[in-house]
């Protein structure tokens, strides 16, 4: 049962969108979402193993519009080849976080301990701060971020989520490109 509080929270789904690797395709996708009032929560895009195509991993908020409309409208873009919807529990998704955290000598060991617990990496150490990277599920990154905050986050960048379907379950890939 959803409480009214939950109803206002974004409901996130992951769309894995295979597109032609051409100039302006990301603009077409982003423009479509903007003009139809669909919300994008995060976005990651890069070429695939086949250089003719790119894959856009987008986390969308289905509170803003029905997922079905998002998929069908996306499918109308000529440069969009295939859209897979990955249900959150059927996908393996990863995000990368890099951050500079204030870590003067008296607390540095505590910060380093946190990094070790989360299996992050220290990329750079300065007099008063350290630069850390961590990849993992978005939840894990959220937890890490929350625990680091008291030390003072000086700068942080998170990538959008990238995702592929889980392998060991029954095929859970919902191919929605044939929307009849």
């Amino acid at each position, binding site marked *: 049962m959803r409480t009214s509080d939950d109803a206002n929270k974004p409901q996130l789904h992951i769309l894995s969108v295979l597109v032609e690797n051409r100039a302006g395709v990301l603009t077409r996708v982003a423009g479509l979402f903007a003009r139809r009032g669909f919300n994008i929560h995060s976005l990651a895009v890069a070429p695939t193993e086949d250089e003719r195509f790119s894959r856009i991993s987008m986390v969308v908020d289905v509170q803003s519009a029905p997922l*079905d409309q998002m998929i069908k409208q996306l499918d109308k*873009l000529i440069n969009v080849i295939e859209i897979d919807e990955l249900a959150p529990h059927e996908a393996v998704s990863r995000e990368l976080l890099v951050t500079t955290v204030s870590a003067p000598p008296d607390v540095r060991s505590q910060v380093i301990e946190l990094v070790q617990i989360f299996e992050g990496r220290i990329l750079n150490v300065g007099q008063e701060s350290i630069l850390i990277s961590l990849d993992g599920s978005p939840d894990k990154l959220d937890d890490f971020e929350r625990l680091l905050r008291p030390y003072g986050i000086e700068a942080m960048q998170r990538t959008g989520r990238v995702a592929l379907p889980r392998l060991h379950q029954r095929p859970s890939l919902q191919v929605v490109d044939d929307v*009849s």
Partner: protein
Amino acid sequence: MSTTGKPTNGGSALIKALENEGVDTIFGLPGGAILPVYDPIIDSPIRHILVRHEQGAGHMAEGYAHATGRPGVAMVTSGPGATNVVTPLCDAYMDSVPLVMITGQVPYGAIGTDAFQECDITGITLPVTKHNFLITEAQDIPQVIHEAFHIATTGRPGPVLVDIPKDIVDPQNPRSAMEWYEPGPVDLPGYRPLTHGNPELIRAAAELILRAERPVIYAGGGILKARAAEALKELAELTRIHVVTTLMARGSFPDDHELCLGMPGMHGNYTAVTSMQEADLLIALGSRFDDRVTGKVPDFAPHAKVIHVDIDAAELGKVRIPEVGIAGDCRLVIEELIRALRELGAPGELPDRRAWDSTISGWQEKYPLTYQMSEPGELLKPQYVLETLRDSTPDDCIVASGVGQHQMWTSQYWKFNHPYTFVNSGGLGTMGFSVPAAIGAKVGRPDRMVWAIDGDGCFQMTAQELVTAASERIPVKVAILNNAYLGMVRQWQEMFYEERYSEVYLSPDLPDYKMWAEAMGCVGMRVESPDEVQPAIDKANSIDDRPVVIDFRTDAREMVYPMVAAGHSNSDIVVGPSEGDGGH
């Protein structure tokens, strides 16, 4: 003789590619960036029609496409030439009109430098085209033009813009050098237009139809786009189900057919609107539940199950969740539906719907369209002008209207008995559409009589294209229903703003429409009394060597009824002025 491999340049290849697509007419206006393409036009069999404003070229191409079903083609230069066609592109996008728009662009190397007449037209037109292309290499021209026509004309039709930098079409520039080739099959892995409907869904639809006691067919513009008028007629006659035809579908089912209920929606007739409200099944064919049809969506056809057929899967469930949604070509799906119905025993197995039929004919008797004839000395009633014009023109006359009161009266009072006889701007509601659209329709169908029915406000927006028509000998006829007002806005101010008329008065005499028409090389007439209406129309119909404009002086107090106020339920339809102010 094959010319494959023959050296050529991008400009000549572009014209040859258009010839290859069967283009017989280009509407356009040259300028700096597109100049090199205008040279090979001189030697091409393609007719080029020189417009006076690029917007006119776009609407002419639309009118041509509406009337013929073939894609309209327009060509303009970069910068302002390109921005001037944004309105027609958006109009064509909203009404699914197949259009190929060629725009010149500054040389490829100058893109991004704010060069003279540079404009990011592919960026600007992303939201108003089905697709657009910026060609960067001369060698790509034949293939991209072929793909542009393929995209514009298949699936849900729409406008496609092709932006072409000057250097790749200019023979003086080495970047224009290329070898001609015949375009190969289209290579668009992300574009697979749907055709046939899902057989299980078609069977489910047929079963719903066979059980329905109060069904109505809600025919939309998709019927015309899919060339499905014959199939629709067969379906309606097989099942004996009444048909409403939306503004975009007028003529797709004959108005003189006993099953035709005419136009639904905000200014639809009582029977069309109310039959949908009371229906237990709506069979939506190529229609998109536009707000001007549905009124307040939650109150629209509240008792009806919905079968929705559309070639654009995104339309299914966009506004109203259908019980059966079928993505596919309207003509093919209707034909498949007819087969399924016959297999299930139609017409023998149809339920007894006599009660529903008599309810409908009761509404038709009780609530016909009416207006009061003018008293002597009063200005003309626009409805009277339209009825006289309708009765004085051939049954297959093509009518192009602008947007506003005159458009609604045209749709209400004309009898559209043939498909492709009503050309108008439905989705975008583009004032100024009718004159250029009528010109384009006449170019596409020179065998037909073409009348533009316009308002005085609309006429002033694009009238200069009558110069184009006069000089190109395109004998369109224009009826201006001149009430000296932006009439529809006036109507809303009268009904919803306590008769506070703000910026809607235009004057009947400024400009002098008769003199203006004559100055543009047309025959001009002015008609002020009912007894002059018929002779003026007869005279206009007898002229076939130049355009004719008749300035009909009409009564500004006349309002369009019935009316469902914006945002209200269709059940709150107001039939006429005696029923109150309509604002509730």
